[in-house]
């Protein structure tokens, strides 16, 4: 026992030095994570999905804050599911290292109900509501209270080939007949949109159901309704899938493959998010010249459609050590100037109506008028804390769309949604 002991003692100074170095190396990143890293300026940790130029917005806000706070942009994973899992895991563990959270519009009610995010009140609330479009604001409310500040929104448009279709169709039926006519003439005819078993299919169905005046949930979000309008929407979805006008891969199509298919010239119509346009201008400029946009068709040609909106709301974590500063930081990140910057540089549609009128927007957003028109009468996805479960079971029941039997599928959906609302639903 003596010998090794002595050896240890002899070596000790070096061991200590190494240990000290290791401790510093380990502690340094930890300190960076904690708040108040540099000389008393509180750090506001912003957890937000990847957005290429958001760091510039963060820098602008940090300069404007004049040392009151320092926002640090922590990039969430690329996939929506992974983003949510990281956030919920850490919030469930009451992690105080997160301050401002970028939430998908469909998570806001869930986080609010779980008491993970703080309500916006008083002056902060008034500032957020000022000039913000009603649809995006609705996605940030839960039980009449405001839990998020809409940072950006998003809405799908109908993209169509001017050279094949002189006038955009007003209803899905018109669009299907037009496509069938084009098919007879041997021209590109396909109607391309997202039909795979995932959130995209739920978005499509929600657009159809809201356009038909149907209600999936009761107004308070507590009960499954699935009324006549939602059955009509199911009929419409089945008709689209069985009229021979979609792409063969409709039941497996997600956003990007749809964009690529239309871009290659196979389709006459595409219902998709605005990001497809700049991509098309770059990849196939000749085709892009032939492409125009319009409001997504309605169920009835005389009733304009209601189109499902997406986007991100900024919320403040209930476990944040600096809630006041976090609200201030969130307000800065979504203010008018910064929304305009993000719209032009990252292509995310603003939530403040005034921004669309800015002359600089005309070039980046040639389709802005149609977007605003849709945003003024939007369709919001069911507002309930159980949305994640509802969406999962809905996409499972609706898939594949060609197998829908309207009344029966509606009954199935009602049952599955009711189970999900009572925490009885089992997720696949």
């Amino acid at each position, binding site marked *: 026992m003596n010998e090794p002991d002595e050896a240890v003692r002899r070596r000790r100074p070096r061991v200590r030095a190494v240990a000290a170095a290791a401790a510093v190396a380990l502690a340094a990143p930890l300190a960076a994570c904690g708040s108040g890293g540099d000389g008393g300026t509180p750090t506001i940790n912003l957890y937000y999905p990847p957005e290429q130029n958001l760091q510039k917005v963060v820098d602008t806000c940090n300069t404007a804050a004049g040392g009151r706070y320092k926002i640090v942009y922590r990039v969430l994973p690329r996939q929506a599911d992974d983003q949510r899992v990281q956030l919920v895991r850490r919030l*469930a563990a009451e992690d105080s290292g997160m301050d401002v959270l970028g939430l998908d519009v469909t998570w806001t009610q869930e986080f609010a*109900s779980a008491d993970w995010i703080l309500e916006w009140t008083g002056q902060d609330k008034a500032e957020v509501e000022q000039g913000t479009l009603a649809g995006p604001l609705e996605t940030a409310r839960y039980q009449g209270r405001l839990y998020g500040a809409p940072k950006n929104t998003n809405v799908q448009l109908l993209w169509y080939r001017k050279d094949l279709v002189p006038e955009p169709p007003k209803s899905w039926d018109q669009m299907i007949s037009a496509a069938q006519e084009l098919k007879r003439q041997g021209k590109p005819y396909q109607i391309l949109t997202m039909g795979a078993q995932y959130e995209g299919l739920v978005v499509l169905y929600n657009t159809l159901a809201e356009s038909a005046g149907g209600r999936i949930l009761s107004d308070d979000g507590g009960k499954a309704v699935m009324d006549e309008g939602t059955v009509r929407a199911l009929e419409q979805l089945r008709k689209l899938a069985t009229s021979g006008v979609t792409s063969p891969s409709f039941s497996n199509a997600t956003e990007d493959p749809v964009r690529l298919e239309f871009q290659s010239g196979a389709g006459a119509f595409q219902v998709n998010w605005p990001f497809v346009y700049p991509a098309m201008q770059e990849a196939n400029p000749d085709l892009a010249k032939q492409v125009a946009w319009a409001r997504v068709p309605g169920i009835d040609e005389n009733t304009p459609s209601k189109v499902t909106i997406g986007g991100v709301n900024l919320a403040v974590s209930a476990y944040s050590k600096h809630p006041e500063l976090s609200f201030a930081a969130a307000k800065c990140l979504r203010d008018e100037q910064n929304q305009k910057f993000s719209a032009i540089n990252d292509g995310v549609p603003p939530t403040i109506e005034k921004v669309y009128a800015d002359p600089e927007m005309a070039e980046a957003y040639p389709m802005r008028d149609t977007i605003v028109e849709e945003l003024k009468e939007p369709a919001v996805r069911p507002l309930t804390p159980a949305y*994640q479960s509802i969406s999962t079971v809905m996409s499972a029941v609706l898939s594949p769309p060609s197998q829908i039997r309207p009344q029966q599928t509606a009954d199935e959906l009602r049952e599955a949604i009711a189970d999900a609302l009572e*925490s009885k639903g*089992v997720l696949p």
Partner: protein
Amino acid sequence: MSEQTATRSTGRHAAVPAQRSGRGRAPLSENKKSERRLGWLLCAPAALVMLAVTAYPIIYSVWLSLQRFDLRFPDERRFVGLENYVTVLTNEFWWTAFGVTALITVVTVAVELVLGMGLALIMHRTLVGRGVVRTAALIPYGIVTVVAAFSWRYAWTPGTGYLANLFSDGAPLTERASSLAIIMLAEIWKTTPFMALLLMAGLALVPEDLLKAASTDGATAWQRFTKVMLPVMKPAILVALLFRTLDAFRVFDNIFVLTAGGNETSSVSMLAYNNLIRGLNLGIGSTMSVLIFIAVAIIAFVFVKLFGTAAPGSSDDERR
């Protein structure tokens, strides 16, 4: 720990009828008693730690499984008795996942046993470069499962992988049958070395003399394998099977990376994860965890009680 297991199992074997005649049920001497007391004292700390790190979470999950407890509805939390069990056990997703898990378990363990035995024989009999052979055989087991699963995924994705283009013209990971086959392939590739390692330990127990004697008596290689080696190795084989079956039943990482449960390829562990972490439904999720725990306990019980699997150390005295 190993000493403790050995003590406990010898203690149990003392009660085996075959040995009772020799040792009888004589009252324990003072010496024995104090020895036994010391034994209990020595294993008390370990037992306490085990209680803290395993018994507590298990009891807590059982408690959670009896409640409606959904993080999204904190105000609705209440005791619901066995309602969650009814919900899960009458759900088709659960039984689909259960079927998938059972299939993966049976197929992979069977294939691994055969391949593992072959590999063990090779490793055992190698004369040149024994170290190199054994190391090479163990490499798959040394690679982190998630990393290996990612390379399988890329290999089977058209565009990025060589296997997808070689064996099919579609995307094999988007169809159920081919996805399951790939999951099983990845599992087998990954854990066959582990099986081989355990079996090799069993092979080392087979006395050379016995094989030579059998050989002198005219036994063929196959007869030596089935009549001499297998019976002697039986305890090692059963332990290897037990370990692998328990592991295979809890398969998660490969599926998570390869298909994320798409096209009905979820295992029960995937399902529990989806309901717990994605669904935030602690009640239903815990119910699934408890059901998995029960299934695993049944597997262990069947192996130990019906097949007579014993801890590796205790099999020695049985044979001698």
